[in-house]
């Protein structure tokens, strides 16, 4: 059995700066066999290692050909250095780990994606996949909230999704004070009032800070959405990726192995208590 601890060597093909402090790295596995065998599903994550600095979990934004894309925000010792990598630099990659968004079993339902801040990155591939297989689903509703308009990643991508049939794209900025076309003022939850979807036949997929997840869930429950069909991607400290190191525990769940995506009913009581 392969050692699950051992990273694969990956080369940085491109560093695409997104907004200040956020960059998307396109990585390519150096070994031919590893590159051919690598498969991911939407919502999973990799452990990325930077030589002599450390290893962090980063969600997989998407894969394009043999490029593995990771959108990284510079927030700590390791990520600060990672966003500075240039093409030709090398790093370590282990993965993919975790479960994925439930695109199967959601045929002919409305798909509702609710994200905030960098929470859009782990969802992006799932949205792209849903649009690629457009006929499998009913409406697609995409809600994204940021603090300022200039914090929004991939504005042109959101613009393009607006042109997809039966696809509603709503954006919110909580700290903008002037009206911007197509934008609402406030948190992402205000968008739920404008979102058009069938509350009885929808699957909700959400990712973002925990207060935003809690507020969105509260709103969805008030609207009458069945919590069984609400899926949340959660974040915790993760240092192994396969449920051994113990850091990612939330109640009796190991987020890295049993998650990071959970139906609300399974993690509700943990999510509602601070400090669990």
């Amino acid at each position, binding site marked *: *059995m392969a*050692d*699950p*601890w*051992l*990273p*694969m*060597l990956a080369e940085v093909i491109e560093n695409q700066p997104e907004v200040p402090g956020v960059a998307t790295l396109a990585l390519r596995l150096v070994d031919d066999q590893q590159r051919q065998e690598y498969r991911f599903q939407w919502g999973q994550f990799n452990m990325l*290692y930077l*030589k*002599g*600095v*450390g*290893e962090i979990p980063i969600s997989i934004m998407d894969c394009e050909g043999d490029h593995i894309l990771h959108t990284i*925000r510079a*927030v*700590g010792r390791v990520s600060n250095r990672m966003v500075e990598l240039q093409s030709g630099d*090398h790093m*370590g990659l282990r993965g993919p780990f975790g479960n994925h968004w439930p695109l199967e079993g959601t045929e002919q339902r409305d798909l509702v994606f609710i994200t905030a801040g960098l929470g859009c990155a782990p969802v992006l591939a799932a949205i792209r996949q849903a649009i690629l297989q457009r006929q499998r689903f009913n409406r697609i509703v995409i809600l994204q909230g940021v603090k300022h308009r200039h914090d929004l990643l991939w504005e042109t991508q959101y613009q393009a999704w607006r042109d997809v049939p039966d696809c509603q794209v709503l954006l919110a900025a909580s700290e903008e004070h002037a009206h911007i076309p197509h934008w609402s003022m406030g948190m992402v939850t205000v968008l739920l009032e404008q979102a058009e979807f069938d509350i009885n036949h929808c699957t909700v997929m959400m990712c973002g800070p925990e207060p935003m997840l809690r507020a969105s869930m509260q709103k969805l429950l008030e609207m009458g959405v069945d919590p069984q069909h609400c899926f949340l991607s959660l*974040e*915790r*400290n993760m*240092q*192994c990726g*396969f*449920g*051994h*190191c*113990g*850091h990612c*525990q939330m*109640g*009796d*769940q*190991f987020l890295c*192995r049993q998650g990071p995506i959970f139906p609300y009913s399974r993690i509700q*009581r943990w999510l509602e208590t*601070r*400090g*669990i």
Partner: protein
Amino acid sequence: MTEKTRQLPLFLPRELFPELFACLQKNFDRVVGPIVHQHAVVYQELESLAQLPQGFRDTTEAGQYRLYTTGSFRLFDCVSSAQGIKPWLFLPEEPLWQLSTGVDASFESIPVDALSTAWVGARACDLAGLNLLDKHFLHNGCVDERYQKRREKLFVVAVNCHRSLATCFCASTADGPEVSAGFDLLLDELNQGFVLVAATDKARSAIAALELSPATAAQIAAADVGREQARKQQRVMPSPHKLAELQSANLSVEHWQEVAERCLTCGNCTAVCPSCFCFRATDDTPITGEQHQHGRQWDSCFSDSHSYIVGSQVHKTAEHKYRQWLLHKLSYWFGQYGRSGCSGCGRCISWCPAGIDLVAEANRLCSDAGGDAESVRGDNGGPYDG
């Protein structure tokens, strides 16, 4: 021969114990056993029998552990030890892989060279702790190869406890005081020698040369009396189903503040716990910068970095941390592995510098949560009854 007759208790006269020790030394790379080091019983590789804590006894209470001498010729009168088997299989610190630098940079796994080890003196709670670690490192969907290699080469010489300390509660967790599983050889120490059970082929072949006779009915009865005495001296935890339900109890923050005011969040309890499995990743780069090493090191849910994410901590305060430790150990474990994560060894109680008593806290919390907590028997006469 049927399995029952093969496990017929034998008798090892005291004067033959050195020969058993010699058999172990011959059959295994090393023999590990209890010794007295810095006024505490710790496990160490044994050079000779003389290192065993002959004539010592231990006494514990919340925040206290002491050894005293009895002048007895018994070898295994010390019930507890500073650590169980955990550090020998799940090392406090170990490297995982290294990365060389230069044009042909590559990641290389650092292999484990496990020694065959005869572990002498394991108690019921030690083996229960091992069973808990097995569930986590071997049976949770991903095998920890380093743990597994050491585990497979472990030969267990267990000892039944004939006395319990004021911090012992393994009967409440259904793990003791009798050793019932997970051993190769099992000893009950009597004055004249040892009632011995060989449970595995490896054990039978290790002792074959000793040509032991079956234990007499009187010897077996004496061992039974010893174990029964240990059982009577035990403290009482709330029942497993009450502990399992504790996570759902509507306990307000005040219930945790009460204990958090005393907790120093030092992590001693997690360090001595035989089932605490958390570890952190470490990265070492030598000053020459030529080779990077990635490893792991025991972590504790009481450390600030344990729950760190993007500039914040999930478990910020002492009450968050203590709640995580206690609920994980006594309650979340049921959801994770189908039983409590506690083997009743009581180390977290005796090694807590603030003297926080897990049994008392669990009883208080279950009582606050509305369940009828069992009464705590208290110090039950202490170790001197033994």
